[in-house]
């Protein structure tokens, strides 16, 4: 294992320090318990998210105007602890209340649940949404349910825009629920990822294999299959997404072609071409799109595709100004 780090136990903290220095115009860092928050938080609903580290820029990279009020980074691939969410909630929550954006993993759900209980006990108004957009998870009755993956970016952007525009907690939550209902994702890996504390890749793939249906924690996926062409990768990811959404000709969508952290843009844009080709062929209209490494698994190579069925209102929220470390326009 080779990582740019000093001591493994200091990795998340030191990385957050560098992040806060690099983006000091947007965010500030609370060291203990660890969270990143927006410097210029106005009086509005506060979106608070968090999750294990190793998925950068998610979530800290989305803190700022038009998206999150605070992000709580856990240890690598480990959900944050309730103390972090509670302290962040105290920092950014006003009368308008706060919405916790939780990716559906047992640990995240339980830790945010505990935090919400503690925050409520302090008189803070907190609601939660749990996103599970990963169609790779089948039979959700027999599992912990679909995982929260790439679609989280759409959720944080659209709900964040609604909050910025002064929507109520109910209103912001309504947008969040609309996004959750309309977004599906699926991912694949060409290489595994190494959790620094573990020192070894979670899984190792041969040169002629890929892992289809991965989550974002370096966990193995649904199936290991022989290496595919970019066209077949795109189809393998997009077909279940389109089927699950039951997308029809003429519908408008927002698409994220997302790298897993170690995916070079040369390859990612090529994948995006294949995604566009397939959607075009099905008469689905790509109204907006985002291509880049946004919801990642450390140094993993691979990609995921997220598709959101987007109304005109959704597109307006997407286009609304945003000023964060990872997304910026109109500001």
């Amino acid at each position: 294992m080779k990582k740019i780090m000093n001591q493994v136990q200091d990795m998340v903290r030191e990385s957050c320090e560098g992040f806060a220095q690099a983006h000091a115009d947007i965010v500030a860092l609370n060291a203990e318990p660890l969270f990143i928050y927006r410097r210029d938080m106005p009086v509005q609903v506060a979106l608070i998210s968090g999750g294990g580290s190793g998925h950068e820029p998610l979530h800290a990279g989305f803190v700022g105007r038009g998206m999150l009020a605070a992000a709580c980074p856990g240890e690598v691939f480990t959900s944050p602890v309730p103390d972090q969410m509670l302290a962040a909630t105290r920092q950014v929550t006003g009368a308008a209340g706060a919405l916790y954006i939780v990716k559906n993993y047992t640990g995240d759900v339980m830790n945010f649940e505990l935090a919400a209980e503690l925050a409520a006990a302090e008189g803070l108004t907190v609601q939660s949404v749990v996103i599970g957009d990963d169609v790779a998870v089948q039979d959700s009755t027999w599992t912990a349910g679909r995982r929260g993956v790439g679609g989280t970016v759409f959720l944080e952007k659209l709900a964040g825009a609604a909050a910025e525009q002064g929507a109520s907690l109910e209103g912001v939550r309504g947008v969040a629920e609309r996004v959750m209902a309309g977004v599906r994702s699926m991912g694949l890996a060409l290489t595994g990822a190494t959790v620094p504390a573990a020192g070894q890749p979670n899984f190792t793939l041969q040169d002629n294999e890929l892992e289809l249906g991965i989550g974002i924690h370096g966990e193995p996926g649904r199936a290991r299959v022989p290496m595919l062409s970019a066209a077949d990768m795109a189809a393998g990811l997009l077909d279940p997404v389109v089927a699950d959404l039951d997308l029809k000709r003429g519908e408008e969508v927002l698409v994220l072609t997302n790298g897993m952290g170690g995916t070079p843009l040369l390859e990612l844009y090529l994948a995006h071409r294949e995604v566009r080709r397939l959607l075009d062929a099905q008469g689905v209209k790509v109204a907006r799109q985002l291509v880049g490494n946004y919801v990642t698994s450390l140094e993993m190579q691979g990609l995921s595709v997220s598709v959101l069925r987007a109304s005109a209102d959704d597109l307006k929220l997407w286009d609304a100004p945003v000023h964060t470390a990872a997304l910026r326009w109109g500001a």
Partner: protein
Amino acid sequence: MPQAAQVRGADIRAFLLAFREKLAAQEAHLTALDAAIGDADHGSGMLRGANAVVAALPADGSPGALLKSAAMSFISKTGGASGPLYGTALLRAAAALPDQPQVTRPELQSALHAAYAGLVERGKAAPGDKTMLDAWKPALDALDAGKTWREAAGAAAQGAEATLPLVARKGRASYLGERSVGHLDPGAASSALLWAALADTLSGPLGEGPGPA
């Protein structure tokens, strides 16, 4: 060696230290188990939590107070699924104990039942779902059947081993479906260490009357 029938704060302290030692010794193993069907953080997470438990543990206090302190440390420092689960379990155990400097072994036993109920409530899993419950349940059953703490720890270890052929239905491993078969559940393995630490602390001749002492 003979053990006091009563469980004092010092015993709980010894149990928690022993649990930490076992986690430290097994960290890599637990992480490797988690790498196979999870996200490779169970060893480091549990050890981080247990280190925090030991660092924050009051020098003395009632069994309940010590367990509560340990619970809060687990919740504050572990993260992941296991932080809230172990934290909730210990918190419930603490709450179930009489607020006394020493408690009886049957009182500890029913506190462990309360802990188990907390696990079930927090995680909404059932035995056979390939989770830590699969270590806890046989251990509690053993105590209920009048077996010793050492035997209960053995049952927990067997329960952990018995997760090998199971299909995971809860937690991260559930995403693997059939591919989770053939791997031990990391949380069950760490739970077996907890029960082994309990046995190390409490093992000895039966205490009072029938049932585990």
